[in-house]
């Protein structure tokens, strides 16, 4: 009971009441994670190479599969949960993801805008010659 007063360390498995059973249930958790990850990875490779799906939608589908697999790794390999003893870990992760999204989406957005607003290079050369 005294364990619950602090947050759990990231990567720690939940404390089980029956410690004797800990290893076998741990193996089960990792195995489920591996199977799910293999299925998602195989689907990604299939989707990238198939001609059955609508082409322009495939990158979005690949991104969704990657997000799902990231979730599988976080839950089954890193043991991140939504429990009250994991608040600090989840908050740090959420902040990290916020920064990642701002950096990636912001860069793409700004550079796309710049590309659209920059005149073509021939025009630039002419302007420079004047």
């Amino acid at each position, binding site marked *: 009971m005294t364990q619950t007063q602090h947050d759990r360390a990231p990567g720690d498995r939940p404390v089980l009441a029956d410690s004797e059973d800990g290893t076998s249930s741990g193996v089960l958790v990792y195995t489920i*994670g591996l199977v799910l990850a293999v299925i998602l990875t195989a689907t990604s490779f299939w989707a990238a190479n198939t001609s059955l799906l609508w082409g322009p939608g495939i990158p979005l589908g690949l991104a969704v599969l990657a997000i799902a697999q990231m979730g599988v790794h976080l839950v089954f390999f890193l043991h991140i949960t939504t429990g009250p003893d994991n608040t600090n870990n989840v908050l740090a992760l959420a902040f990290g993801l916020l920064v990642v999204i701002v950096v990636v989406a912001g860069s793409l957005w700004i550079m796309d805008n710049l590309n659209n607003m920059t005149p073509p290079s021939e025009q630039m050369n002419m302007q420079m010659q004047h």
Partner: protein
Amino acid sequence: MNVAVAIETLQPESLPSASEAGPASKRVVVAYGFWIFLLSDIVMFSALFAAYAVLVRSTAGGPTGADLFNQASVAIQTACLLVSSFTCGMMSLAVDSRRRGATYAFAVLTFVLGAAFLAFELRDFSGMIASGATPQHSAFLSAYFTLVGCHGLHVTVGLVWLAVMMAQVAIMGFRATVERRLRCFALFWHALDIVWIWLFTVVFLMGVRP
């Protein structure tokens, strides 16, 4: 509400609030600090990903990703890293239950799979460089080698770390400091696999599509 009152009246000192409980154990503090480092490392990777996504079309008339990437090799690398993540988890379980033989066995498996990943990646790199697709050829290739090479560098550091940890287990046994370091290594190795998910999705699978 009744339950909460009952717990408070029955055992007032066994469940102190977080502010009264004093500092967390070193095991929690160390792992949390390493978790913060990993997130900052992932933020650094996000900058490299952003650079790659911006520069992916800037091939300067040179080869594109579709010309260069070998999907079979990428699939093998993905399998190696994913299974090594699993064996790393098995190693964590062996450490938890203090089984020395199993710890060594799974550490060796993790090391071999990580080294195989690295061997395939280096083979791809040397093949690309031999065909003239060097990092200085185009902005796309600079971004590609920086992003994928940085992940490969992390895997290399992870392999060295794993070897050092096995030496520490052999010499010092499962004492508290060694166990904390093994825990951090497991976090590091799983985080590298998460970065690789985005690498094979964004760089290789999206890259081979016309």
